[in-house]
């Protein structure tokens, strides 16, 4: 069958968030680490159950804001006092009083860039396809099905054993999907 093609992993199809959550916990207990859940809505506690770490996105945003903050100060100070020193309505060449709106805006802008592009980067987006779409019942994961994939890159992965293990957790349907 699919023996010639590389394998992405084994999909287990569950009928409720509770059975999925229990399966995730069992898989973790068994030593699996490379797994992904596909569900129609967020399930509380699944991140912890899967051992997902806190995203580093916050630090990317912080870098964006720090860059925006300093760039805005340097830009206004440099243009205002070095390259085009013009006195306007008796105000200083540079002052935080009038500089701050720009500092604020640029901080927010680069933070937002950090958040959006950082999120896309961390999620590996944009990408045109994903192996999960090779699963025949994938549409259910945006309706009423709860999928757990144990990926082939996991060092404990072995097609038959993993498949049997997932079957023992009460999956209603199992499928090996190609990468």
């Amino acid at each position: 069958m699919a023996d010639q093609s590389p394998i992405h992993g084994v999909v287990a199809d569950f009928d409720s968030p509770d059975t999925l959550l229990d399966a995730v916990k069992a898989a973790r207990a068994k030593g699996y680490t490379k797994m992904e859940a596909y569900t129609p809505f967020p399930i509380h506690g699944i991140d912890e159950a899967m051992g997902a770490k806190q995203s580093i996105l916050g630090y990317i945003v912080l870098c964006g804001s720090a860059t925006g903050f300093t760039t805005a100060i340097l830009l206004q100070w440099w243009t205002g006092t070095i390259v085009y020193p013009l006195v306007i309505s008796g105000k200083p060449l540079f002052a935080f009083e009038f500089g701050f709106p720009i500092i604020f805006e640029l901080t927010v802008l680069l933070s937002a860039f950090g958040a959006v592009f950082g999120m896309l980067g961390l999620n590996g987006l944009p990408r045109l396809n994903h192996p999960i779409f090779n699963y025949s019942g994938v549409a259910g994961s945006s309706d009423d099905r709860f999928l757990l994939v144990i990926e082939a890159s996991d060092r404990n992965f072995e097609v038959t054993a993993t498949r049997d293990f997932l079957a023992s957790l009460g999956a209603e349907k199992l499928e090996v999907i190609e990468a």
Partner: protein
Amino acid sequence: MSKHHHHDAPKDNYQIPVATWEKGRNVILALFVISWVAALAGFSLDHKQFFPSYLVAFYFGAGITIGSALFIMIQHLTGSAWSVPLRRLMENIMMNMPVLAVLFLPIAFGIHELYEWSHADVVANDPLLLKKAAFLNPTAFYIRAVIYFAIWSYWAWRLSSWSRSQDASKDLNFTFKSERLSAPGMLLFFLSASLASVDWIMSLQPHWYSTIFGIYCMAGGMWAFFAILTFTLLRLRANGILANSVTIEHYHDMGKWMFALTVFWAYIAFSQYMLIWYANLPEETIFFKVRRTGTWEMVSAVLLFGHFAATFLTLLARASKRSLNVLRFITVWILCMHYVDVYWLVMPNFSKAGIAPHWMDLACFVAVMSTLALGFWWRLRSAPIVPVGDPRFQKGLEFQNV
């Protein structure tokens, strides 16, 4: 979330235990008696110092009480579930509105000590005050105060008593009625609280004006309201009250609100400052000129770095909003900073050379706050400490941040 994972969650007692209640009452009563004796002694010794000190304390308490009403109405209008388990405590703070009206009496009584526009001879010789006299005169000041307290007390009483009626009846109509009352309530509270800040604080310097001043005061008051609510919850939790119902998820959201209002306050404060700085008109810049004279400049710096920067950086990380130790510290910090803010608004009008702390500041502060605390504490016993009849109560208990 499904019942499967929650059916064994431990339940709280929704009545405050008598022993805890009596212990709290005794502490508050002791503070109440001592501070009022001290405040009254201060009044008879030096009423020139008493009235400004009292105004700072009164406005500190008023801001928190108004903030509670604003937030309760926002929660009704948005149909929030997460805040429902905390709402009864907020309502007990909000129901201090009539108490606040009584606490206002010393201000009404001391109008001539506090407000130069209340003297007819001063107004007669001041063209600018003469033009403002239709608004800034004692009669209008008193009438407006009565209107403010009437509006605030009525809304507080309706929202609070409907919520209590719902405890037993679980009647959904109370929820709909509260939503309907909250929409005009928001409008009226914003207008009246804004005008109250003009009457009570801005008019201390009657030549000066700033159209954003009301929002500035409300932002600070609401900020302090969240701090005092979170602080109270943490104290109750330390005594085993609501320790299971109010979870880290609720504290996290309170932390978010404190963080948001830190930024909002700074945004408003800076907007006010920048426009005045840029336009550079003498009758506007006088406000900041006074607050950059002598040691007041230091207090202004405390607001910039302490009120804003330090709080902003402390609450920025998700982990700190989810740490009860950080929240325990930051709530006290916020209350101190809000006091500095109100002090900074009022006192430079009376002590122009620089900051001059006085024991009466403390006496008045404890007097006003213990009076409000007493009102809060008494209502804590007369009903369950959570709105058990609210249709969103269970959902609020189970709430989790995603």
